[in-house]
């Protein structure tokens, strides 16, 4: 690999697409900087950041709602909120945290990291990605606008019919906002899921077989598959509810023979896979962080992958454990009791594999690692209380008490949020090119950890003492005051921890020195490119030879299995800093577009039209206008080639599918490969040659 090929004659790089505008209705957006470049972007990295920022904003909103709940319950006979306001706040807290925080935060990280981890230049459908984001944001805005238009949803995040379906029970438009808001975010998630699934299956770098795919990408893939198949189920439920409320159908009306249990089946047939949609990415994140900070490979990588797949499948067969108290009869309850206990097996396998990863490793307890270990401990506690729910007799006692609230906060906050926060610390330097302050990170972790256990640990006790969920106040004669006060103090400790985190992110991090490409001595491909990554991600498509490919470029093992640095360790890391396109190298990327946001906006208008139409004597004109805007957007989208100068434009797939390397400099490729591969690389040569051909 010493022969350096002569670079081919290079086309001049147009710094901006010239927008020939063939076929599209509108000229292309041109700004490559500033506000508008973010609005019309199709870059998976920018969209990932937008997902993350929006989700964090909603985390603050949902967190504030949680603080209101805790203030109300801090003491007996609290009167900070009225009963109706309390119902709105807990409904919006649950809906926000599930649909507007954990899901988009996981999707945002997957959006950013999955293409980097599999060595791709973007996701499979960049414009669909932009559409998903804007539709998700529309759904969030739509849901929260209900506060202005006469009251937020107040039927719980589970929206049990007939409470929600008979308009007399919950007057006002709140439930309708809930229905259409969730339909919007549901479409967004489904489209996003299809996109990420195709990306993971189709866009992996040469040599990256499925069993060499980093574990976070794997868990995201499984989670997105679940999203793809679970969302239509709740869509059906929401449509039936919508017809009941707005058009007088009888699906959930017992007086006309309707069966309220149907709602529960449909909701939980979505709702239980949803639990795994929320937790699987976090499991992937922890599995990603631990090997790096233990300096050991992930223990039993294939088992981790297959246990994730097993969870994904079994997650469809346990939903009735949410309905043990409904009265479905002993056979159904026993069967689902057993299946629920079974699903603890692959989860337990994962926990033992994490312990196996830590065992004998040279551990570094940086903040990401603290959150990852915190995840395991908290998630194990939540998992164990989950097993007590699987035992149906015990569950009958616990149903609708604070014990359940304690359980799912241990898995969703102690689990999913801890994993996601750990990942933010882990990938922050990659995404923004700055480190987060380590000392403040530790303060954040410990405050969060203590506050979390203070807030949700006592709820186990409260639940066993019989405190029911969803009550807006309780009497002092019940003697529930002490633990409720402890819980409220814990909640405010979490709030302080979050302020520390924000100070770290928004004040300290921008001032810190630039982060290196590989600050943690990482194992996966995203560390082999500069921080923050250039727009095109990889100057040349990486060729993958093993699991944890980047690690094996830096390290090997001696005969006794000890870790040894390869002689070109420094060179590999230096090459990561300079994995940049050479002057004159033209990398063809998908161009920004107006149409996804137009299509998403149309659906938002249509949703408002449905609300307006109903209160307007069934005049759905606004919805029709919204639908037409969406159709206009979709047509413009379909007719516009995905990348501006359409050299390969005769084949829309190639263009949309894989941004092609048009004028790759063979020299850059050669240099990248020499630095990139360990000794004796037969690898770089032919591959680089082939890629030269491809251009």
């Amino acid at each position, binding site marked *: 690999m010493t022969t350096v090929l002569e670079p081919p004659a290079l086309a001049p790089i147009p710094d901006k697409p010239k927008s020939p505008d063939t076929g599209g209705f509108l000229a292309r957006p041109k700004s490559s900087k500033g506000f508008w470049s973010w609005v019309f972007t199709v870059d998976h990295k920018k969209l990932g950041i937008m997902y993350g920022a929006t989700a964090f904003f909603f985390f603050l909103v949902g967190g504030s709602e949680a603080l209101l709940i805790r203030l109300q319950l801090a003491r007996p006979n609290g009167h900070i909120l009225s009963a109706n306001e309390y119902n709105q706040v807990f409904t919006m807290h649950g809906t926000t945290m599930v649909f507007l925080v954990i899901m988009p935060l996981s999707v945002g990280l997957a959006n950013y990291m999955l293409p980097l981890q599999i060595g791709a230049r973007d996701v499979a459908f960049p414009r669909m990605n932009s559409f998903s984001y804007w539709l998700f944001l529309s759904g969030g805005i739509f849901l929260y606008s209900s506060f202005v238009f006469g009251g937020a949803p107040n039927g719980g995040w589970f929206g049990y019919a007939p409470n929600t379906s008979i308009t007399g029970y919950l007057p006002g438009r709140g439930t309708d906002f809930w229905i259409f808001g969730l339909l919007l975010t549901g479409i967004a998630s489904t489209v996003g*899921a*299809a996109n990420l699934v*195709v990306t993971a299956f*189709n*866009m992996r770098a*040469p040599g990256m077989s499925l069993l060499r795919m980093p574990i976070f990408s794997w868990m995201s893939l499984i989670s997105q598959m679940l999203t793809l198949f679970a969302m239509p189920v709740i869509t059906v439920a929401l449509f039936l509810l919508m017809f009941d409320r707005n058009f007088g159908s*009888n699906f959930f009306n017992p007086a006309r023979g309707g069966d309220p249990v149907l709602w529960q089946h449909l909701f939980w047939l979505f709702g239980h896979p949803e639990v795994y949609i929320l937790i699987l990415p976090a499991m992937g994140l922890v599995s990603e962080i631990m090997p790096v900070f233990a300096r050991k490979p992930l223990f039993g990588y294939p088992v981790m992958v297959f246990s994730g797949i097993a969870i994904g499948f079994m997650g469809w067969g346990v939903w009735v454990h949410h309905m043990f108290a409904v009265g479905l009869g002993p056979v159904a309850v026993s069967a689902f009791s057993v299946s629920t206990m079974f699903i603890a097996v692959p989860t337990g396998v994962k926990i033992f594999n994490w312990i196996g990863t830590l065992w004998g490793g040279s551990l570094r307890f940086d903040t990401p690692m603290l959150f990852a270990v915190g995840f395991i401990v908290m998630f194990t506690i939540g998992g164990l209380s989950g097993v007590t729910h699987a035992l149906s007799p015990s569950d009958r006692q616990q149903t609708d008490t604070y014990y359940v609230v304690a359980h799912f906060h241990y898995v969703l906050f102690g689990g999913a949020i801890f994993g996601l926060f750990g990942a933010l610390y882990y990938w922050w330097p990659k995404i923004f090119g700055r480190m987060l302050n380590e000392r403040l990170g530790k303060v954040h972790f410990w405050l969060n950890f203590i506050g979390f256990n203070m807030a949700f640990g006592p709820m186990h006790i409260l639940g066993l003492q019989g405190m029911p969920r969803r009550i807006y106040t309780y009497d002092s004669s019940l003697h529930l005051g002490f633990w409720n006060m402890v819980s409220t103090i814990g909640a405010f400790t979490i709030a302080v921890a979050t302020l520390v985190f924000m100070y770290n992110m928004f004040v300290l991090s921008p001032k810190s020195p630039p982060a290196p490409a590989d600050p943690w001595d990482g194992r996966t491909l995203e560390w082999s490119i500069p921080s923050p990554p250039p727009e095109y991600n990889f100057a040349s498509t990486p060729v993958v030879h093993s699991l944890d490919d980047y690690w094996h470029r830096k390290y090997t093992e001696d005969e006794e299995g000890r870790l040894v640095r390869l002689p070109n360790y420094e060179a590999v890391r230096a090459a990561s800093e300079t994995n940049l396109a050479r002057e004159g190298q033209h990398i063809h990327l998908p161009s920004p577009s107006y149409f996804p946001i137009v299509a998403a906006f149309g659906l938002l208008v249509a949703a408002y039209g449905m609300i307006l139409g109903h209160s307007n004597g069934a005049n759905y004109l606004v919805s029709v206008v919204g639908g037409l805007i969406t159709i206009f957007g979709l047509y413009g989208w379909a007719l516009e080639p995905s990348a501006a100068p359409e050299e390969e434009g005769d084949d829309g797939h190639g263009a949309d599918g894989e941004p092609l390397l048009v004028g790759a400099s063979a020299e850059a490729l050669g240099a990248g490969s020499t630095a990139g591969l360990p000794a*004796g690389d037969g690898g770089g040569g032919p591959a680089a040659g082939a890629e030269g051909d491809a251009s």
Partner: protein
Amino acid sequence: MTTTPEALADEHAIEAMRAEEQLIGAHEGHATNTGVSNEKLAMWAFLGSECLLFGGLISTYFLYRGRSLAGPTPKQIYDIPYTSISSFVLLMSSLTMVLALAAIQRGDQRRLRVWLVATAMLGTTFIGGQVYEFTSFIREGLTLKTNLFGSSFFVLTGFHGVHVTVGIIMLLSLAGLSSKGKLPQSKSEVVEIVGLYWHFVDIVWIVLFTIVYLIPSPHVPRPSVPPLQIR
């Protein structure tokens, strides 16, 4: 990884060859790992998702069969021969869809348009039949509000009708693109992908026709709330 350096080097060489093959393969078709283009894979993913959508609606219909507290019942209202004919029309449209795909793969633009429009017309005939059926049911006193049968029947078949309509719009758009010369032979996969959707919608109708029309539903109304069991 406990492999020796030699073995490692070997593996690298093999990998490089594979990678090279993959890249050269990329010239001819689609540079994807599965060999299926992104668009087609996404359509399959979408159709998988749609299965659950119709699955939920079909389950709802099935659950409520014979549980309406008031009439009219399916037996009183269905005109099976009429619906059989419109089902036949829809199934024939799958044949014309296949012929349209075959035409573009041969590069025969004129026949492509003929078969696309024919498919769309057959679909429109089906939708026209459905509109007529809906209006006659409403005239006979079955609406969304009448009973559980009305609610579940109109929502289930209505959802299918919307899917057929979307398919018709896509078919006519393809025919329009073809007449403008913007649908060359090299883009035949677009027709194939729309065809996948169209065949899926047809298959769903086979299931719906069987479940909704052909399987007779019990007409004894059951009490909706079973008596409480005290254990």
